C-alpha cells in the first residue's frame, strides 16, 4: 500500500499535452504553409531557454517532416513566429507541386518531453479537410 501511495504521489496532476499543426495548401504558388501552435513553456523546455527563429527552426526541421508520394522530403523553410498569450505560433513553408493528397506527414514535436503528448494535424486542401494524430512511436501518415 505504501509503494502504491508513493507511486501515485510521484505522478503529478497533469495538464493537457497537445499541439496543433495546421497545413494549408496555397494554390497560387503551389506551396504548403505549416503553422505549429505550441505552448511556449513546453517549447522552451525542448529548444533551450531562448526561443529564437534559429533555435525554433532547427528543432522543427527535425520534428516536422513532409514527404511526397515518391518519398522525397519537401524542403521546409522558416516563415516566422509570433506569440499569443501562452501559445507560440511557428510558421514553416514548403513547395508542394503535387498538392497535399498522398503527402506523408510526421509531427514529433514535444514527443520526447511528455509520454502522453498528442500532436494534432489538420490539413486543408482541394476543398477538403483531414486530421491526423501523432503520439510517441507513431510512424509517418499519408493525407487522404
Amino acid at each position, binding site marked *: *500500500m505504501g509503494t*502504491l*501511495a508513493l507511486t*501515485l*504521489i510521484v*505522478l*503529478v*496532476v*497533469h*495538464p*493537457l499535452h*497537445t*499541439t*496543433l499543426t495546421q497545413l494549408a495548401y496555397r494554390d497560387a504558388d503551389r506551396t504548403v504553409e505549416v503553422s505549429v*501552435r505550441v*505552448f511556449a513553456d513546453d517549447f522552451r523546455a525542448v529548444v533551450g531557454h531562448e526561443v529564437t527563429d534559429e533555435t525554433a527552426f532547427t528543432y522543427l526541421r527535425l520534428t516536422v517532416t513532409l514527404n511526397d508520394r515518391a518519398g522525397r522530403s519537401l524542403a521546409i523553410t522558416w516563415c516566422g513566429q509570433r506569440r*499569443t*498569450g*501562452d*501559445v507560440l505560433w511557428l510558421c514553416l513553408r514548403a513547395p508542394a507541386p503535387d498538392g497535399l493528397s498522398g503527402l506523408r506527414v510526421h509531427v514529433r514535436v514535444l514527443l520526447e518531453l*511528455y*509520454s*502522453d503528448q*498528442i500532436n*494534432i494535424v*489538420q490539413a486543408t486542401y482541394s476543398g477538403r*479537410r*483531414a*486530421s*491526423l*494524430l501523432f*503520439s510517441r512511436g507513431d510512424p509517418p501518415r499519408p493525407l487522404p
Partner: protein
Amino acid sequence: MSDLATFVTLGFRHITNIAAMDHILFLLALAAIYRPRDWRDSLWVVSAFTVGHSVTLGLAVTGALVLPSQLIEFLIPVTIVATCGENLVVRDRPRALWGGRYRPAFAGVFGLVHGAGFANYLRSLFVDQVALPLFGFNLGIELGQVVVLGVAAGALVLLDHLLTLTAAGRTVGALRLRTVAVSAVVGLVAAHWAVERSPW
C-alpha cells in the same frame, strides 16, 4: 480522420492515460462507496459530475467565464480530498443528511471545478475554432470516464473478494474496509498535490 473523431480521440486518450491521475483518482473516490447493486446511485453521481464538468468547460472555453488557472489547479485535488473525507466520515448513509442523497449535488459542484481545469488549454490552443474541439474533447472525456469507471468497478469487486478473506474484512465488512483503504490512499495523494499547488 474527421475533425470530430480527432477531438473525441484526444479527450478519450487524455482521460484514460495513466498520467491523468487527478481525474482518475476523483472517479475512484466517487466510486469507492458503491457495490454493483448500487449502480443507480453511482450513475446519478457520475452523471451529475459530467453535467458540472461540461457546464464549466463550455463556459470557460467560450470565454463566458474566466477562471484563474492556478486556483483551479489547486481546487481540483481539494475536491478529491473532500470526497475521500466524506467517504471516511459518513458510515451510515441512510441516516446521513437527506438520506445520503446529497452526493449527486456534491459531485456536480466538484464537476464544475474539474471542467475548468481543461478549459484554459483548449481556449489557448484552439482560439479560432473552439466549438468542435470543445464538443469532441468533452465527448471523448465522457466515453473515457465510462471505461475508467468500468475498470474501477471491476477492481473494487475484486478487492472486496480479497478483503472478505481477511479477519478485518469479516469483522468490519469488506465494503467499509475497502472504502477506508481506497479513500485514505487517494486522499493522501490528493492532499500532497493540493499542498504542492497551493497558491498561498
